């Protein structure tokens, strides 16, 4: 039982870390309890948790096709350099 209370005094720094790790690994009981208690009393960390989930969803829906800089066509020089390296040019 004492082990379960290990994270009872979780601060925002620790909570943010756990919020992030929550999607990477199963949290220990003490971590889950500590995080839950902290979220009850902390508006900022609730907002942070929401934005982490928000971001996750956005990246899942858009990230794979995302062209992070769309205005970057191959220059004709670069295109020719690449072509010279191809066997069927």
């Amino acid at each position, binding site marked *: 039982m004492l082990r379960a209370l290990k994270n009872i005094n979780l601060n925002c720094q620790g909570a943010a870390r756990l919020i992030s790790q929550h999607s990477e690994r199963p949290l220990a009981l003490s971590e889950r309890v500590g995080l839950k208690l902290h979220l009850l009393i902390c508006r900022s960390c609730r907002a942070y948790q929401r934005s982490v989930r*928000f971001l996750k969803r956005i990246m899942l829906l858009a990230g794979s096709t995302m062209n992070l800089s769309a205005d970057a066509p191959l220059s004709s020089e670069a295109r020719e350099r690449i072509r010279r390296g*191809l066997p069927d040019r």
Partner: protein
Amino acid sequence: MSVTRAPDPHILPPSASRWLDDHGDALYAYALARVRSPEAAEDLVQETLLAGLSAHHRFEGNSAERTWLFGILKHKLLDHLRKAIRQRPLTEIESDVDAEFFSGGGHWKLSVSRWPGDPQQALENAEFHQTLAHCMSKLPSRIAQLFWLREAEGFTTEQLCQELDITATNVWAMLHRARLRLRQCLSVNWFEGDKK
């Protein structure tokens, strides 16, 4: 009566040169946005086309040619990231990110604003995509790539450790950093911003 089937005009013989004409710009833009070096992006496009030639017998034609080439490019990007990490170990960028966001007592320096709306709604706005791209470009390149692999390409922590030859702690630390920074950047540039 023997029936000779005419070759399907939609299936062209493999030609890296034609791929370059048809998909070169798209592949290059995608690679450049991730590796951020024109030279490296150029090399990746060439490697992708060459790998496409030698793997073409495995292309079943049930996905679009471009999708198939992008699949190859994504593998090349993963290789590229692995080499980059091997050359310059992650410990070098392990400065304390928490000090940027938290006070000595472990409280947020700025109160965190609640993002209104929902992801679907945000993505319907073309300007949001630009802002997201801007914020991704502000992340250190390797952190942005790792975050993209994890969240968009669906690699698990375990897979990333294996593919990139790094520890789970490394992965967690980099993702944590990406989330803190991205959230702050989007709050400032898209949502209403954080308050003191």
